[in-house]
């Protein structure tokens, strides 16, 4: 369905504009810019998406300042929590707005509080204005589906299941999971890493990295005090496991008769070639996850201050849709050289970390 002529369906009137494999630019860029200036709120949003997509597919970076000047940018946190009431209809019934009274129980409170902490992390540490740098509203839906064992980012909002109570507990329980899902949104608006193969594993890894950093920042934990787990406490007591993933020791998060053993590798020699899971995006992410952990461990202190900054700049300024582990390694090394100077302790730490996971930095 990918149309090579790059000119076919009209955006705005077609659902196809929302799908990854369709690149359609029949509306010229200047028209989209006009719509962003003059259109209704809905038209502006669609035109903005078209511009973002166009920029990403052409391999150019967003000129955020220029775009932002076209229409209003919010500079405040704006959260909305919806309740799907165990249906699979999105967004569901509105239960809490920004600044509204606490209601809806623990799940609503967790979705509200932890998305706020994630917003604060990106604002305070990276001077980032929400997911899209323009103050995008943070919409979350809780109580999605029946016994739903998942949380996901659907391209516009976060969605959380309650778990089945047998394997999983509610997915809002873990702050790093909420940070993980929101970080998928950041990736969407930045490198837009494809959700397949090594690019997909990098997409997952960046969400794990920032998810873990959101938790560490909220708890003011230094590298040696952090648990480096993703989804710690999500499993019920019936499951033999401590989390979904371990960034420190990939492959050790669980080993259970029902769900099996954590399949994550921590080194390229164990890279898993598979067609499952979009080419193992949640499996091979263990490799870049460990590279980040090893860098942070080597540098010590607060992981978001150096390692986190290097990874953030790499995501926002260096990587592209189809970047792979090698390109991520080279880019983090380059960024460390720019931020902390060539042959600095930071740059050496990056090189050593990637080397320990089987990726030799080529510079």
């Amino acid at each position, binding site marked *: 369905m990918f149309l090579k002529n790059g000119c076919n369906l009209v955006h705005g009137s077609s659902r196809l504009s929302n799908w*990854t*494999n369709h690149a359609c630019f029949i509306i010229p860029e200047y028209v989209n810019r006009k719509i962003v200036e003059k259109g209704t709120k809905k038209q502006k949003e669609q035109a903005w998406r078209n511009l973002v997509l166009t920029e990403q597919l052409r391999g150019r970076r967003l000129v955020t300042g220029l775009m932002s000047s076209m229409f209003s940018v919010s500079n405040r946190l704006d959260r909305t929590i919806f309740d799907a009431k165990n249906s699979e209809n999105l967004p569901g019934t509105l239960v809490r707005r920004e600044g509204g009274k606490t209601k809806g129980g623990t799940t609503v409170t967790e979705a509200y509080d932890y998305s706020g902490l994630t917003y604060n992390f990106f604002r305070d540490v990276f001077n980032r204005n929400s997911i899209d740098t323009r103050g995008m509203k943070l919409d979350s839906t809780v109580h999605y589906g029946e016994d739903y064992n*998942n949380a996901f980012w659907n*391209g516009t909002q976060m969605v959380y299941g309650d778990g089945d109570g047998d394997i999983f507990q509610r997915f809002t329980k873990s702050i790093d*999971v909420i940070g993980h899902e929101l970080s998928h949104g950041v990736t*969407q608006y930045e490198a837009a890493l494809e959700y397949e193969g090594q690019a997909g594993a990098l997409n997952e890894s960046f969400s794990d990295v920032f998810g873990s950093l959101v938790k560490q920042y909220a708890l003011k934990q230094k590298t040696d005090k952090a648990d480096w787990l993703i989804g710690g406490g999500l499993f019920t007591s019936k499951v033999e496991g401590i989390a*979904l993933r371990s960034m420190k020791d990939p492959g050790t998060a669980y080993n259970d008769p*029902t769900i*099996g053993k954590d399949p994550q590798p921590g080194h390229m020699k164990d890279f898993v070639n598979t067609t499952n*899971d979009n080419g193992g995006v949640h499996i091979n992410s263990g490799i870049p996850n460990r590279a980040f952990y090893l860098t942070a461990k080597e540098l010590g202190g607060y992981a978001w201050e150096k390692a986190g900054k290097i990874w953030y700049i790499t995501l926002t300024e260096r990587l592209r849709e189809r970047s792979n582990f090698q390109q991520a390694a080279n880019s983090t090394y380059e960024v460390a050289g720019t931020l902390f100077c060539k042959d600095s302790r930071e740059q050496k730490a990056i090189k050593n970390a990637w080397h320990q996971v089987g990726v030799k930095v080529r510079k």
Partner: protein
Amino acid sequence: MRITVERGGGLAGIQFSNDIDASDLPSALLRTAKKIMHERKASPLKVSPRGSADHYIYKISIQDGTKTSVIECNQYNIEADLKSLVKYIEKNSKNRK
């Protein structure tokens, strides 16, 4: 006829597999399974909304004698009749996971 549902992806990335014998299906779902077996030659495209992540991916295999039909889709493009079949199998499989 035996039907197997493999569900992967999701935030956890854990693969779950459930199966059921066609004789244990309600008649409406059995019709759905037979329809899939005979009418659907190709798997739906595995497209998903731009930027989305951590969604479920499904692989439904229907084995009848020596013939096996396989449908792969995800939570965004799974068709309603197929979704009903998947939900039933996941809930009623004897080796439920």
